[in-house]
């Protein structure tokens, strides 16, 4: 049986339409008018004048969208494919101090202790657990929370970091002065200073892909669909379904940053 959550996460293309793969039924359905049309033409018939013309391709309107991500930690296996894909897609420095996304492994022990680790951001997976007396363990993917009330945007002295109309927080590399106030203002440790450009950097939801109708690289490669990407403005989407079907938590919600990365059934140990 098809997994109800494993729905198509592709975004509307820039013209707003959602292309769907053609299966056999679709192919036949589309093929059906062809012989009929041919027949009409051969019969010398005329096209009906009031037949609606195909809608003209509407330009991409950023304010129509509000991008967001859902994360289901229960599905994450800590393989690190997302971290690798992110580093490759976005030219993130390979050194273990710069991450747009990373995976944390939580090991909660029976004595109440919680050990957290993220060796090299989890890019190459995790070593075997050495702790004993384990109560539960789980992985949590982390990234910029694309807050709706972003403290990083508030503090940037020159406005180099900003929220796009489609709800993504970006940094203008050509404008950032490298003061690093935004790095301190981010409660999630999601920002770093690029060692070459000397400007602040963070997850962009792969904005360059979004505007082409593609989904972020980390979502694309996740083998277990632990990451669900979508548009909060669309009622029928895998993200909406994810938000309907799960108990949703946000990281550090008490700071009132209104994060837009939503976690399903998140463990209380995660900060």
């Amino acid at each position: 049986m098809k997994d109800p959550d494993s729905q198509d996460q592709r975004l509307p293309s820039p013209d707003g339409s959602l292309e769907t793969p053609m299966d056999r039924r679709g192919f036949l359905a589309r093929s059906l008018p062809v012989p009929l049309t041919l027949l009409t033409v051969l019969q010398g018939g005329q096209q009906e004048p009031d037949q609606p013309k195909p809608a003209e391709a509407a330009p991409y309107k950023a304010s129509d969208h509000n991008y967001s991500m859902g994360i289901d930690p229960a599905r994450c296996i800590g393989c690190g494919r997302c971290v690798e894909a992110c580093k490759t897609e976005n030219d993130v420095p390979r050194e273990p101090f710069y991450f747009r996304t990373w995976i944390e492994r939580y090991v909660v022990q029976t004595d109440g202790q919680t050990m957290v680790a993220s060796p090299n951001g989890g890019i190459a997976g995790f070593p075997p657990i050495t702790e004993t007396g384990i109560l539960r363990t789980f992985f949590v993917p982390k990234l910029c929370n694309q807050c709706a009330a972003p403290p990083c945007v508030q503090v940037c002295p020159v406005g180099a970091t900003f929220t796009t109309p489609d709800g993504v927080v970006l940094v203008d590399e050509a404008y950032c002065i490298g003061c690093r106030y935004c790095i301190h203002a981010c409660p999630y440790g999601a920002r770093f200073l690029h060692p070459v450009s000397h400007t602040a950097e963070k997850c962009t939801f792969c904005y360059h892909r979004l505007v082409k109708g593609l989904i972020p690289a980390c979502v694309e490669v996740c083998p277990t669909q632990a990451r669900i990407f979508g548009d909060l403005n669309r009622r029928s989407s895998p993200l909406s379904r994810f938000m309907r079907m799960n108990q949703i938590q946000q990281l550090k919600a008490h700071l009132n940053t209104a994060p837009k990365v939503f976690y399903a059934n998140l463990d209380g140990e995660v900060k």
Partner: protein
Amino acid sequence: MTDAFQPLMEVLQQVKGYIYPNEVELHWGLLIVVYPYITGLVAGAFILASLERVFNVREVQPTYRLSLLTALAFLIVAPLPLLAHLGHPTRSFEIFLTPNLHSAMAMFGFVYAWYLTVVLLLEIWFDYRKDAVVWARNERGLRWFLHRVFTLGANDLSPRSLEFDRRAGRLITLIGIPSAFLLHGYVGFIFGSVKANPWWSSVLIPVVFLFSAIVSGIALIMLLYILTSLVRRIEIDMACADKLASFLLYALIVDFSLEMLDFIQRLYEAEESIHILSQMIASRLFISLVVLQMLLGTLLPMIALALISPAFRGQGRALVQAPPELRRLVYFCSAILIQMGIFSTRWNVVIGGQLFSKSLRGLTVYKMELMGLEGFFMSALLLLLPFLLLYLLVVVLPPWPDKEVSLEAVNADLLSAGQTGQPD
């Protein structure tokens, strides 16, 4: 991996517990410690100057002009550590051209420009104008040129214009006091408003910064006054030194009380962050916070000043009567200890706020570089530079009371110039 990342690899080895991967690099280093330290000295020195001008504390008059020049010398240097620390210093002017009005940091340009031009430069100009006019008349060469330029052509020495100078200076000082509060309160706000950081996020931080600024400013002027008197081989005015010591003690007590209030509040509230902050104080910050800031930098000078200075009994009477030589020595040593303590305070705020992870699960370390724009030597240079500037300012505009042009000298000057109260 290249050598450039070797220091970060070493930090990674010393991380205790869990920190977010992006937190291995510590972003605000020694330069950002130096910045609030310097602005604090500016604000403190100015507030000391205002004591004489606005609150008529006559005893501290010998330090009035020295305080103004010290504030100016340090204010000129204040933006340099920020500039050296930026990833793109050449883009720094964007803060002035396209400021983000929601950003506390963007206000820096306005606060700085206001304080430099409207407060300090104007006050110094009104205060020194008559002196510069009189000095220039008996001088030749560079000094003549500098003093002529300083007067901006306003050579009127009539009683009316002198009275205007006095009133204008007083008005500017009145504006200057809240401005000095604004300058350093604002620097505190830069840290205090970061809600992501429980070590910084406190409404008390701007107030603590302010009073520590006053403490550091008075202590610096005390040091400079004693040192310059020694160099100039003149007798130290003990009434002035005693008064400085008294005000230093008052400010120190307020500062310490506020810090304790902040400390006790955190401890009593015992929020989520208290465990990691306690660990940090007990390990990474123990020397700089408990030993240098609290014991040596605050309590020891506080006790010494409370015993030796006439702060509590007044009329030159102290709890422990000591000869002037001993009092001078105690004041001098206390002022040095206080400087060390205030520098540690800045260190503990800036560096301390980055030694624990925002995951509240781990501690990291700060590896200070020696060379480079953000290294130790750069910071040392930036701390010495204001003293060089102050020396130059003192040469051009001597702040000593015995060099100040008296009213009699002004009148004599008017007579010699063949004028009687008319502008030339």
